[in-house]
């Protein structure tokens, strides 16, 4: 069959259409102009003009995480591509599917230090799942379809295509997606049957089991969360979620113990520590989660389900590693559980849950309420209470204490409604991510829970948000500090608050106004509810500047180098347990 010939730029646009893409995030420049010319002459794809390329990638991440689709970014060569690097690294760490097109100088100039040239594929090789430099228009259509396939298959991630200007101007055949099959990249999705049988048998034997599930459940699609919840119900086992997994089982589920890890709940961490079987599903034993490795869950057997074989036995050696997609493996496990007529050891599980209830009784998330000053925890709690009746609330965050408080105090009932930068921990993620979420869900209530320091990192995207009339709500827990940094300095560096206080913060109410948004402020607990209600009721972009206690720290906390059973539950604990030398070097 003869394929139609067209310019590279046109091939790109046609490929996006055929991939079902309706929105792209980008910023033009010399090397990518042919593509922008082509975008101008069509109306199937909406282009969102960001204010900095970093915003484009985070925007695409929010879009992708909230829809399950691939996010698309278009930037120019040189500074355009280097500005995109942080977002690519972020998407790689958090397994977010992105395809990023970068303009490049024409092929005959590559390597000559041409204007706005940089070695984009070299720079982005370690922070993408895969990348391509397309040297001929005839390869372009195939490469683009392959890139989408790679981005969304297996463990999702960012894929970059470097596009020299002569390739987008030249002519080549347009090959449709159906005619492109990847030769070698075929990730395994079906779990090994024998291992699944063994794992399920192990579960039926367990006395103190726990499900420890993560972002991979979200990556696998909403069905995975349904199946997980079903399996949790069938077995009666307790379940904890990572930061990336929140929403994979409803927060209101009676067996849900909250988040685990450094700022996880007392009950979740002690349950991990005391368990005899951990069933890890789409979670990667991150150091924020395990604490000191040689003290991690010392008596537990471990089952690990992950689509990426390199996640298995990486940090923690497991007894059964099952490579496959969460949905497929859970389907098979539930089937085996039913077919073999397995029952959990009811008496043992009841004892175990009683023990966990006791731990819960410590009420580890308690904080001292005040009528004088807004406690940040209280602010999130009220935000949750005043929005939880709605089905369509999406929360994004920046990075810091506010992020952890959001994870602890906002309850997520469904997957894909919580967007946060977990692996890279990128301040400045939340605002552009919220913009991406709102574009995909125009009528939803999208709230960026922010810190006053983080929000400054991509504040320019307020202008994009204004341009597209996106009613994003920015809920700033303003403690005037890089709170998370201040907390570490208090605990580890003798209270020497080196460079963690920022003077000359903007007046966020006026700043909102300058960006065409509405600015609100709450300074006292008595004003909080009204401000939240007003923020929600305004059908426009809002920045709510919530002045919170500057000295509040985020607890519980497993200090660096400590184990799950060595948590600090509050300020009173810190004097008793000095942080070890080994812990000091950790981040």
């Amino acid at each position, binding site marked *: 069959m003869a394929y139609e010939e067209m310019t590279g730029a046109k091939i790109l646009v046609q490929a996006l259409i055929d991939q079902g893409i309706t929105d792209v995030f980008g910023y033009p420049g010399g090397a990518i102009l042919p593509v922008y010319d082509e975008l101008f002459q069509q109306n199937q794809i909406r282009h969102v003009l960001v204010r900095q390329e970093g915003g484009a990638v985070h925007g695409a991440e929010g879009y992708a995480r909230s829809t399950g689709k691939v996010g698309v970014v278009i930037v120019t060569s040189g500074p355009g591509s280097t500005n995109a690097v942080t977002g690519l690294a972020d998407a790689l760490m958090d397994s977010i599917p992105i395809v990023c097109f970068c303009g490049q100088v024409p092929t005959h100039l590559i390597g000559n230090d041409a204007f706005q040239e940089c070695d984009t*594929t070299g720079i982005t090789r370690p922070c993408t*799942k895969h990348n391509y430099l397309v040297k001929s228009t005839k390869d372009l259509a195939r490469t683009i379809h392959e890139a989408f396939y790679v981005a969304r298959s297996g*463990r999702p991630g960012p894929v970059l295509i470097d596009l020299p200007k002569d390739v987008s101007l030249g002519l080549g055949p347009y090959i449709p997606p159906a005619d492109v099959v990847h030769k*070698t990249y075929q990730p395994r999705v079906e779990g090994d049957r024998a291992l699944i049988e063994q794992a399920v048998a192990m579960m039926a034997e367990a006395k103190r089991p726990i499900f420890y599930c993560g972002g991979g459940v979200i990556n696998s699609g909403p069905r995975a969360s349904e199946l997980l919840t079903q399996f949790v119900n069938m077995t009666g086992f307790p379940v904890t979620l990572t930061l990336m997994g929140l929403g994979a089982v409803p927060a209101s589920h009676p067996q849900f113990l909250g988040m685990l890890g450094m700022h996880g709940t007392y009950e979740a961490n002690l349950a991990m520590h005391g368990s005899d079987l951990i069933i890890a599903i789409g979670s990667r034993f991150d150091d924020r989660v395990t604490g000191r490795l040689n003290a991690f869950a010392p008596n537990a057997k*471990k089952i690990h389900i992950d689509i*990426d074989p390199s996640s298995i*036995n990486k940090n923690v*050696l*497991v007894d059964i590693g099952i490579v496959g997609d969460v949905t497929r493996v859970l389907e098979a496990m539930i089937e085996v559980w039913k077919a073999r007529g397995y029952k959990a050891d009811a008496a043992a599980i009841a004892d175990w849950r009683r023990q966990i209830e006791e731990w819960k009784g410590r009420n580890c998330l308690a904080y001292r309420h005040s009528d004088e000053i807004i406690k940040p925890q209280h602010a999130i709690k009220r935000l949750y209470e005043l929005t939880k009746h709605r089905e369509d609330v999406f929360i994004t965050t920046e990075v810091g204490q506010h992020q952890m408080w959001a994870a602890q105090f906002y309850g997520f009932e469904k997957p894909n409604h919580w967007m946060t930068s977990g692996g890279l921990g990128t301040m400045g993620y939340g605002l552009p991510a919220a913009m991406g979420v709102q574009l995909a869900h125009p009528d939803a209530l999208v709230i960026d829970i922010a810190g006053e320091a983080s929000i400054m990192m991509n504040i320019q995207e307020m202008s994009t948000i204004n341009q597209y009339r996106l009613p994003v709500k920015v809920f700033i827990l303003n403690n005037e500090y890089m709170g998370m940094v201040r907390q570490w300095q208090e605990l580890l560096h003798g209270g020497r608050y080196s460079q963690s206080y920022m003077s000359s913060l903007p007046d966020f109410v006026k700043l909102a106004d300058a960006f065409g948004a509405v600015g609100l402020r709450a300074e006292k607990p008595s004003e909080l509810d009204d401000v939240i209600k007003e923020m929600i009721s305004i059908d426009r972009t809002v920045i709510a500047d919530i002045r919170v206690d500057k000295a509040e720290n985020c607890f519980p906390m497993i200090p660096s180098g400590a184990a799950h059973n060595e948590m600090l539950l509050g300020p009173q604990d810190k004097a008793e347990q000095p942080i070890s030398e080994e812990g000091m070097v950790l981040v």
Partner: protein
Amino acid sequence: MSAPNNNQRHTIAVLVDNEPGVLARVVGLFSGRGYNIESLTVAETKPEAGVSRITIVTSGTIQIIEQIKNQLRRLVPVHTVSDLTIEGPHVERELALVKVSGTAGRVESLRIADIFRARVVDSTNESFVFEIVGRPDKLEAFIKLMKPLGLVDVARTGVVAIARGPQAL
């Protein structure tokens, strides 16, 4: 489960698409994740399919070796990763060119070359270049013996390896 902590040497054969950047990907993976490379060789072995074979000699604990293989398998242009060290008997070979200069040790160097079945591939009045093929330890033994005899230069290919028996990768 707990893993033994002692380092092991493994020879890993990787079949990859021969496309630009593939070697950088593999090398970047090793340097970025702090793995050892004792030797790395690469050449196209199936030109009609555009496939190259990379032979890597590395060392690490069992857990690290497992990670290395899984990380290699994650790379999109990688077809197969085989750990020759654990997959059965295999043959390992390396070639070295060894230059010895000066007149004092000429006879002795020829005698040793003969024992090691090294060939003379270049000679002048005051130098020889020997070509020697074998396992890396044999090459090392030869090079060590050449040192007092005027060794001035060595070039080594790095290890190539292949499984014994009829099976292909």
